[in-house]
């Protein structure tokens, strides 16, 4: 049993004639969960489909050390009962007939939708369909499970519930799991490692390391480091709003250029004096007026050396 059921080597992916990424190196190891992040159109779903064998690589290769199943973005359930949908997937997977029912019900129970087993799939809500879709993937017990945005299109409470359940269910010592996610919170909640597909390149690393210390300015920008403090040597410090603290005795001062009201306060954009950069910070309501001078100090952030993109 290979410890790496799925790996990409020098992989290039394409949609039609358009190459979306190249030189992709990725190993999925048993027992780990990897989150794949990237902006819209970066090629996340294409990479997943290529890894799953649904698309041919434009270059390079995909190495499979086990069986790979992919749950694509749309649940795409057939017009039959929930249980029949899971059993159909098990039949395609080659599971003997006498084991299908029990495996289907076990997977539905794990996702807390066993009571929907005999209900027509067409009658499910969006959240229920997502759970059944995930149950189908888990029921197969593949060596590598690829999930394309398993929380897409759900309202906040439903998403939070599913995220909570998935954080336990996706972790299995015998399985490698790759999931395409839409935001960093999902990656934080679920993944041991994060891979970011940006500008045609894949960068991966341990979740906390990559999300807190992105190596390039472009990656930092994508990962929410929206503020920039330019330094004299050409380097810059990239900052999230949480890294900037209002402090009347702070060493930096900037004028408020934008005010964006939020649920818990105000997101303010500051243009620093001496053209040292733009920062964002959160302040309690009602906050400063536009044009007002605010003093701040820096508490965190990531330093990007000069020349690092």
């Amino acid at each position, binding site marked *: 049993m290979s410890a790496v059921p799925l790996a990409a080597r020098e992989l290039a992916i394409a949609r039609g004639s358009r190459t979306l990424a190249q030189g992709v190196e990725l190993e999925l190891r048993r027992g780990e969960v990897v989150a794949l992040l990237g902006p819209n159109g970066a090629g996340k779903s294409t990479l997943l*489909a290529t890894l*799953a064998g*649904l698309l041919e690589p434009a270059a390079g290769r995909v190495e499979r050390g086990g*069986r790979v*199943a*992919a*749950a*694509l*973005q*749309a*649940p*795409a*359930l*057939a*017009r039959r009962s929930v249980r029949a949908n899971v059993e*159909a*997937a098990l*039949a*395609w*997977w*080659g599971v003997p007939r006498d084991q299908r029912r029990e495996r289907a019900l076990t997977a539905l129970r794990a996702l807390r939708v066993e009571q929907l087993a005999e209900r*027509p799939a*067409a*009658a499910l809500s969006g959240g229920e369909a997502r759970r059944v879709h995930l149950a*189908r*993937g888990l029921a*197969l017990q593949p060596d590598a499970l690829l999930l394309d945005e398993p929380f897409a299109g759900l309202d906040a409470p439903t998403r939070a519930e599913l995220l909570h359940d998935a954080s336990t269910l996706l972790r299995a010592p015998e399985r490698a799991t790759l999931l395409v996610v839409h935001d960093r919170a999902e990656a934080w909640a679920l993944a041991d490692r994060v891979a970011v597909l940006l500008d045609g390149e894949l960068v991966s690393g341990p979740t906390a390391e990559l999300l807190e210390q992105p190596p390039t300015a472009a990656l930092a920008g994508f990962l929410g480091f929206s503020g920039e403090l330019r330094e004299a040597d050409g380097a810059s410090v990239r900052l999230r709003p949480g890294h900037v603290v209002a402090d009347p005795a702070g060493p930096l001062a900037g004028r408020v250029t934008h005010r964006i009201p939020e649920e818990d306060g105000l997101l303010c954009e500051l243009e620093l004096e001496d053209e040292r950069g733009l920062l964002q910070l959160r302040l309690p309501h009602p906050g400063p007026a536009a044009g007002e001078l605010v003093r701040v100090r820096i508490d965190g952030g990531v330093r990007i050396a000069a020349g690092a993109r």
Partner: protein
Amino acid sequence: MAFVLHLLDEAFARIAGGDGALVETALRTLWFASLATLFALLAGLPLALWLADGRTRARRIGLTLANAGLGLPPVVLGVYLALLLLPASPLGGLSWDYRPPAVVLAQTLLALPIVVALSAAALRTLPPGLLEQARAFGASRPQRALLALREARVGLAAAVIATLGSALAEVGAVVIVGGNIRGSTNTLASTVLLDLAASDTPGAIADALVLVALLLLLALVLTLVQQGRTRDATAEGLV
């Protein structure tokens, strides 16, 4: 009016009396139409499955041709097929001219665009990603084809019934390639011509009545299938 009623009365009497030639013609018509529908389905469904995924130019062209084929005049097909079946022609070696296989072949060729166009239209209504997802869960090509056919079964039933109805009612090509030979290649629709030519108006009316009854039966089956689907959808909370 009395004359018309008399003709109708005689036609009904022949039907009620189980006129041997009428029954034989009705059974032959059903046999030809069923075979043609079967062959058209065997050839047309795989083509429809391929065309339904109309993302390439070749598939779009194929779908356009199938749609255009819906309007193909049967006599045009009949003329060209009859030419192909002449002894000196490419299909002459089959010796099918003026024989039942020629009738079935003509009906099959006329039914093919109906099967392909209507089935492809039914298959294009499948939920997006259904077949791709099945593939991602390990479904083989035949398993995906079965899934598609099962999911589109109501639309496919309509295609089958339309095909069968078309084959039952077809006249032009049948007469040209089969010769409309009584007891061999005639069908209910083509026998109307024979009876009228022989001044047997009650016979023509009886043939027509039986044909209409068969077509109404098909319409009834289709309606029941569609209503059954609607009931399913209602139970699923869709309507």
